[in-house]
């Protein structure tokens, strides 16, 4: 049995779990190809132009699975709410409905719903709905499989918390390994890069931002490196409470990074037309001013050119370098001033003695 999982949206956060879960039930996963320009334009043709970039890309991946990969079962979950009255964005809540209405082909759509605000729509019901259309209905087997899934997912989060890049961590986790690397801290500049996983780790959307930063001598920190407690504290820093299901990874991480002395600047990457992000970024901008952290907001859509993107990142890092240098010089000046004042005192005393 083969099911197709689009390499978009939830893939970047939950794939290790799905891999373990479906794998232990004997279901083969077929992933779509990596995002390309053609794939994006095919996806955008299906939905109205105001739709946000990640959803357009998702549609492209669904088409890719159906046309190129020859899969006729698509797994498209709807994450309604992750906690009591903490809802997701409408487009993610209605994702399977969008796929069903927009993709005009014959295929089986598996559309489980996770809704923690409802009574009977928790994780196990969600998992049951995920595999029931494939003929697996035994609840004990499903529970066992979910444990395998969690083992993979925990390995993944363990490695990312340790500071490993999530894309690398995912590859390692899927092999069933846990690798903890020794960290070298010799980067002159540290930047926090804030966005959702599906924007950052999709190299077509983020235009290889991590490699570019690496080349500029910058260490990029992401929200996956933080623990949930740190991000909750971050929300308190921004004087807000959780409203969106994926608010922690932006607002929470921003609060945590902006109070961290080792972080020199914050960079946010938002997809054009993202509703929740527009509000979160507004709040972050206000607090960045108060906490005096340099902030760069980048908005991407399907027409964003790479040249403009690089220029902005370069200018931002140049600014951070200059700021750091001038800080060092100022500190040195202070030191020199103190030293010279001391010398003067000594000199005048000598004078007094001589006289």
């Amino acid at each position, binding site marked *: 049995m083969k099911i197709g999982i689009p390499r978009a949206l939830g893939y970047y956060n939950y794939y290790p779990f799905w891999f373990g879960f479906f794998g232990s039930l004997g279901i083969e996963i077929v992933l779509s190809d990596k995002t390309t320009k053609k794939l994006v334009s095919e996806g955008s043709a299906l*939905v109205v132009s*105001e*739709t946000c970039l990640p959803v357009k890309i998702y549609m492209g991946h669904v088409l890719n699975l159906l046309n190129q990969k020859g899969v006729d079962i698509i797994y498209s979950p709807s994450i309604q709410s992750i906690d009591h009255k903490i809802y997701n964005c*409408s487009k993610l809540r209605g994702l399977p*409905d969008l796929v069903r*209405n*927009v993709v005009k082909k014959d295929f089986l759509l598996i559309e489980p719903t996770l809704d923690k605000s409802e009574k009977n729509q928790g994780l196990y019901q969600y998992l049951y709905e995920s595999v029931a259309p494939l003929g697996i209905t035994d609840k004990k087997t499903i529970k066992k499989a979910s444990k395998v899934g969690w083992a993979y997912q925990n390995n993944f989060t363990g490695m990312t918390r340790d500071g490993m890049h999530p894309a690398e961590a995912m590859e390692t986790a899927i092999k069933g390994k846990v690798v903890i690397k020794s960290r070298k801290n010799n980067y002159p500049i540290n930047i926090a890069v804030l966005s959702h996983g599906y924007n950052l780790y999709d190299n077509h959307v983020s235009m290889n931002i991590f490699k570019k930063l690496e080349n500029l001598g910058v260490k990029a920190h992401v929200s996956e490196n933080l623990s949930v407690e740190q991000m909750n504290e971050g929300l308190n820093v921004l004087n807000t409470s959780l409203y969106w299901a994926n608010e922690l990874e932006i607002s929470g991480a921003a609060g945590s990074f902006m109070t961290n002395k080792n972080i020199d600047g914050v960079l946010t990457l938002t997809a054009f*037309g993202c509703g929740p992000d*527009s509000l979160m970024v507004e709040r972050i901008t206000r607090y960045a001013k108060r906490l005096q952290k340099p902030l760069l907001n980048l908005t991407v859509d399907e027409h964003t050119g790479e040249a403009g993107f690089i220029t902005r990142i370069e200018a931002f890092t140049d600014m951070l370098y200059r700021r750091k240098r001038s800080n060092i010089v100022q500190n040195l000046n202070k030191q020199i001033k103190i030293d010279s004042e001391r010398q003067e005192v000594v000199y005048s005393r000598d004078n007094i003695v001589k006289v």
Partner: protein
Amino acid sequence: MIPFMQAEVNNIKANKEKIVAFPQMGNIRIPVAAVLKAMGANLYLSPENNKEALSLGTRHSTETVCLPYKLNLGNYIQALEGGANVLLMFSAPGTCRLGNYAKMAEAKLRELGYDFEFIVFDMYKGKFVEIIKKFSQATGNKSISNAYRGIKIGLAKFDALDEIERKLFYFRPREIESGKAEKIYLSGRRSIEKADTVEEVKNTVQETINKYNSVKIDTNKEILKVYLMGEFFVLLDPFTNMNIEKELGLLGVEVERTIMLSDWTNQTLIPKWNKKTETHRQRAVRTANKYLTRSVGGECIETVGDAVYAAECNVDGVVHVGPFNCIPEIVSQCILPNVSKQENIPVISLLMDEQTGKAGMVTRIEAFVDLIRRQRKNKSIINAYNKLSLRGEAKASTWQSKSSDCRVKSVVGNNN
């Protein structure tokens, strides 16, 4: 500071009069103002939504936030400049960005340096109790009878406004002398605004209906019927939707707006066990089931459900409005083409923002109305033909035999 002076300052602060203001949304100003007045509040009634409020709001908000927020913020700034010091807003979970408005607006206004009290109707908790509590907090009212009286007259005004507006939708496309029904409606609205008791409100409604009945209507005119649906704020606020009902009415289209003021109050205020008939939302969930199986926030499921319902009711077309960049309406906008195709109902989506020009919108509406009028004609021709063929079977059979001959010929031709 000398102690007794401090006491005096405190006194002044306590006695400082509360002047209440609330954001504007079409006709909602009349009943809400009535409730607040009955509870003894000093009211700053900000002007109806206008260009000035919009540009003020746009200046102080991020570009990608939706239109209702910009207008709300504009209203608040106007009210604070006009002397108000208590602002009302409500926030509810599980909807859309609406739940963040209160937080955002408060932060922005404080940043701009205004001093005010911000009262949020928090719908996370109970509904009815919460509303009375917060109204009392805003007005300083302590008597329950006043609160009861206020809410009673408020609800009466909600219903009255809906009633005269529905009549307007009926008369506007049919009247011979255009503009007369509108005048009656406006004068009726004014007198409802002035009315102080429930009886007075009822009398004005009766008077207005009598006036309507004296309007001469063209009974021979072919009237198209259109459902107007979509996002709540844009539907109810004539400034934001550029008075689309009027434009449609002038083109000879009877509009049925799927969300009226009182529908909404009934849905949110009356507890579940007291609802006898199927509410709008329940109907939408039922009809939308084929296309949208889960509620995704905002009015998305209502929009999709109403489109299907419109097709069931044999309505000529559906006009879908919403603010630009509204998350739930984008979902419904993606789904509607499929509904339109499967249910065979024409749909037009109009998303409004501060840049929308009226002329462009009117052109699109005109084109849409032309289209549905032509479709109706085609339908009537087909119906007439069907009726004919039923009556004169002999004639029809000759027709059919002729056409079948043609078909056979063409098939043969293909084979060759």
